[in-house]
């Protein structure tokens, strides 16, 4: 008999019963990215054609916007070339009343949702910060501070649910953004509140120059979901049909009131971070070449061809429509925007403060003096030059 077995000996009370709050196993992502193209899966031909038209249009949009940076018509453009399947699917899985929360690389998703291609580029053109009314297409402002828009998507979805509205918010972020604190806080809030939110991480391999290996030690980004008690899904981000299905399932799950989902789409940023970046400093052509072999547009073309759906009408129709979009975009962007410097003071507060009123008056006087100078010098009356783009009246 040991001391502890003697009658009256001290025994520590057993700890209160513990069990996991959630069974983690169903939350785990697949062991490899989910794919549909090339698997012989049952797929809707209409959806495949729609996705194809959008991908071709999206590829053309990226090319056109990049060209506009070289012509000085855009200040900067973070291209989503190679990631079009994610951009397009994210927009197509949403209903009209749902909300999209894009990051700065997701202009294409806003366009795929129906926004005017030129209007979507306001931020990157530089004539204002958000060039569109977010309410019109229910697209939040493109967010440049990484992951900071994710809590907004959670809050909006939460508010909609409190009001009894059937609204899902889908938020987009990159692999680098998953390291930010706001990513963590957003997922945690969404999980605790069970908000109808879908988080789409486009893992395109790089945060500007930093590869994923320096970003995380997680088995996959999708695995992070388990820590929040929500399902993580891993999908091939270049397989448009697969991304569409996984996101659609997540959206429907959210709509049913079953809470948020984290989706990691594995893809690749074919272009540099932006036109101002030099990708040759941090990655080799071999790697890019491998991913070009797994191009989202080519994958879908191959699938359509194998199913006998890739006829001339499908291909030519998609390309003609894309060229038309590009032409309209060029025309729109080649027009100088009409700028009113007095706008700088118009939207800071609901009503201008006294101080902003004084500062507006100062700028107004400076502009008037500039105009007087031009008139006095026999100026061109606002025809051409920078001053020509400046509207006269205070708004």
């Amino acid at each position, binding site marked *: 008999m040991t001391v502890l077995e003697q009658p009256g000996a001290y025994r520590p009370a057993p700890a209160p019963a513990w069990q996991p709050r959630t069974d983690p196993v169903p939350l785990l992502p697949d062991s490899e990215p989910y794919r549909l193209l090339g698997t012989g899966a049952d797929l809707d031909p209409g959806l495949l054609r729609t996705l194809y038209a959008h991908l071709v249009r999206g590829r053309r949009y990226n090319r056109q916007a990049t060209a506009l940076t070289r012509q000085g018509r855009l200040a900067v453009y973070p291209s989503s070339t190679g990631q079009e399947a994610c951009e397009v699917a994210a927009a197509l899985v949403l209903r009209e009343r749902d909300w999209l929360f894009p990051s700065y690389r997701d202009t294409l998703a806003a366009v795929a949702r129906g926004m005017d291609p030129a209007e979507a580029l306001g931020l990157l053109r530089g004539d204002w*910060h*958000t060039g569109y009314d977010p309410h019109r297409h229910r697209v939040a*402002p493109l967010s440049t501070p990484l992951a900071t828009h994710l809590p907004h998507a959670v*809050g*909006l979805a939460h508010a909609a649910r409190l009001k009894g509205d059937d609204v899902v918010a889908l938020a987009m972020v990159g692999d680098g953004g998953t390291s930010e604190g706001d990513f963590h806080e*957003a997922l945690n*809030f969404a999980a605790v509140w069970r908000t109808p939110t879908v988080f789409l991480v486009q893992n395109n391999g790089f945060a500007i120059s930093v590869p994923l290996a320096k970003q995380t030690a997680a088995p996959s980004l999708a695995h992070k979901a388990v820590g929040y008690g929500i399902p993580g899904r891993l999908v091939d981000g270049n397989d448009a049909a697969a991304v569409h299905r996984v996101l659609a399932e997540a959206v429907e799950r959210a709509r049913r009131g079953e809470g948020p989902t984290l989706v990691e789409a594995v893809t690749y940023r074919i272009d540099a971070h932006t036109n101002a970046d030099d990708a040759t400093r941090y990655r080799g052509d071999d790697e890019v070449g491998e991913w070009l072999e797994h191009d989202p547009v080519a994958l879908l073309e191959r699938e359509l061809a194998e199913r006998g759906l890739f006829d001339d009408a499908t291909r030519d129709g998609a390309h003609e429509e894309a060229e038309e979009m590009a032409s309209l975009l060029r025309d729109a962007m080649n027009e100088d925007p009409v700028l009113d410097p007095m706008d700088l003071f118009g*939207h800071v507060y609901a009503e201008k*403060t*006294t101080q902003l009123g004084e500062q507006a008056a100062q700028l107004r006087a400076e502009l008037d003096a500039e105009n007087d100078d031009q008139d006095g010098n026999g100026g061109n009356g606002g025809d051409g030059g920078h001053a020509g783009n400046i509207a006269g009246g205070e708004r």
Partner: protein
Amino acid sequence: MTTATTGRSADRADGKKQAGSGAARKPATMAQALNRAMRDAMAEDPSVHVLGEDVGTLGGVFRITDGLTAEFGEDRCTDTPLAEAGILGAAVGMAMYGLRPVVEMQFDAFAYPAFEQLLSHVAKMRNRTRGALPLPITIRVPYGGGIGGVEHHSDSSEAYYMATPGLHVVTPATVADAYGMLRAAIASDDPVVFLEPKRLYWSKADWSPEEPEEVAPIGRAAVRRAGTSATLVTYGPSVPVCLEAAEAAREEGWDLEVVDLRSLVPFDDETVCESVRRTGRAVVVHESSGFGGPGGEIAARITERCFHHLEAPVLRVAGFDIPYPPPMLERHHLPGVDRVLDAVARLQWESEWTERPEAFGATGRGGR
């Protein structure tokens, strides 16, 4: 020698009881008035939602949200996970969908994780969307020292907020203002950082929750004590200090005016300058550190607008330029009555000796 005139009784900020104007009025604390403001706003407007850490069952660590969850349910007054960026970020999304969130940051220094949301989104959303997405969010922040708080519990963080265009920054110093200004903040279509002076939470005044008196709108300062010798420009927790200093100054022959700014942004140049032009001298008093603090901006504004009326440089009495001290040393840091009076004594009163020598006695100190 002019006699000091006190401000309206209901505006007393020094916690001393004044003769009540109505039989139904009882002493109420600032904490009660803040609580009542949220309760009334929630009852009046179903889009008002309160969220924060411990605001639900507990009623907040200062009990400012006491009873709101019981009355309105967890969907209206919600305990959140412990993450300030998440709280404010979620509030942004809620406001985008038409709600009117009132966010509680538990303590001044615990609001810092929410800075990116505040600076990059809350302050800018209206502007970056040309007015399409206004964010009517009230961010309540208990601030300031004097409560014996250990590290990270006593910061005066107003300068950070003031330096951010797009925010309103207000702070009440009276019970009536606590109610009236919080109602105004919640009703505002702009984001308002609502700084609550912790050490005034339990200050009392005759105030009726059934008949809360009208207060001046956000953006207006209030003259809490009329005077003629010099103007003390102050706000929040330093208002009672300045009122006490003004009483003590009578012994020295100074009749000090005390201006309670109430609203740091928008700033009421008109009231401040009207006072300083009349008195010819000004001291700015606040707990926040002096260097880069609100006092520098205020002194510059006064100097730019009142230069020819000034008999002396605008002086500042501020917290030292040090991290907030441990509680056993904080009394040396906080601007007190003596430090305020020392500053007043340095307001170049010599100019009066030469202009009106007959008005001054042998001590050389005197008022107007």
